[in-house]
């Protein structure tokens, strides 16, 4: 409240308790990030470019708001079932952005069913380690290889690496 420069009355007029306030923060932040990612994704034509742009927007958003990101990505896991459920739902929104990549893979029948969940988990892991270490600014440097990591299972290493190089040079 001190940070927000409001009084107790204002707090309780808006939220029942600390948890409600925290959940509202999660909703707002997840929504803002998902919107940014979707916008960047929609601006591109080819699917690999869409994913690269979406990841770029996500990393930018996280690096610009490291404290909120930490609250939403790291702390949410331990903040009770309601926060965990919202965190899960927020991650699930990225699955439909990745799924179209399956169409680009000639061996798509052999792709693991959990591939999208796994890749999202991997990106989240890399992000969380940087947030925990207080190094959110390092994310920008990790963007090219994260793009390669996410694209590789769908489009193969060559296309994934080319997309990573494009991101590194922009």
């Amino acid at each position, binding site marked *: 409240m001190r940070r927000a420069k409001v009084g107790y009355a204002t707090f309780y007029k808006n939220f029942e308790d600390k948890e409600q306030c925290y959940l509202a923060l999660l909703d707002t932040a997840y929504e803002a990030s998902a919107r940014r990612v979707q916008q960047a994704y929609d601006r591109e034509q080819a699917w690999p470019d869409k994913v690269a742009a979406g990841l770029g927007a996500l990393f930018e958003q996280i690096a610009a708001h490291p404290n909120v990101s930490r609250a939403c990505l790291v702390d949410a*896991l*331990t903040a009770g079932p309601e926060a*965990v459920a919202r965190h*899960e739902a927020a991650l699930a929104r990225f699955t439909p952005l990745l799924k179209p990549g399956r169409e680009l893979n000639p*061996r798509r029948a*052999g792709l*693991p*069913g*959990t*591939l999208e*969940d*796994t*890749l999202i*988990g*991997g*990106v*989240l*892991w*890399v992000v969380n*380690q940087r947030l*925990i270490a207080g190094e959110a600014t390092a994310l920008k440097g*990790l963007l*090219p*290889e*994260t793009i*390669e*990591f996410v694209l*590789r*299972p769908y489009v*193969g*290493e060559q296309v994934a*690496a080319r997309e*990573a190089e494009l991101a590194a040079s922009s």
Partner: protein
Amino acid sequence: MAEEELGPLPAGRHGFSREQVAHNQRERLIAGLATAVAEHGYNAVTITHITKAARVSRRVFYENFESKEACFLAAFDVVVDHIGALVGEAVQAAPDWPHQAIAAARQALAFLASEPELARLCLVDAQSAGPVVAARFLAAVGELEAPLRRGRDERRDERPLPPTTEESTIGALVSLAARKVSAGEAESLGDLLPDFTQFILAPYLGPDEAERLVQQPV
């Protein structure tokens, strides 16, 4: 490690030396913590929950551990060492790196699926139990990177994989497993083995060879 395997310490003259009793009590406390954490979650668990589950006194708790956190770290280490030993044994019997990787994933998943409470302790609670425990968790996960990185020797492609390949791969699998456990689906972790192995092997062997090995009978 389950509580029922331990039973109460026999009263009176039980013929154990003081060290044996102390060692036994420490193990009971570790098992008690696992049971209590499974029921209450790490953050809500109290020393009383732990001592009740372990059926030892509070005094005995503090003779062995200075805090709930210290007891949790001991439990975490016991579980991780146990998985490490199981995996180590399986890896030794495997003929080459790809089969070592498959054997390691199989052993780890099989153990976690057979011990859902311990899976929760070391994958879910360990991430949420505060900075000291989280650091231990990260260090344990980080240990998995070196053996995975040996897969780089298998690559035909001249181009090196990006430096964070192992970190992202292991992080991806640990996150996925943790989410399964968190959703109460620890028992079905074994079903993830084909997906896990394919995901682990593909960057090093290429997708075709990875898929072939996954489909190969054990």
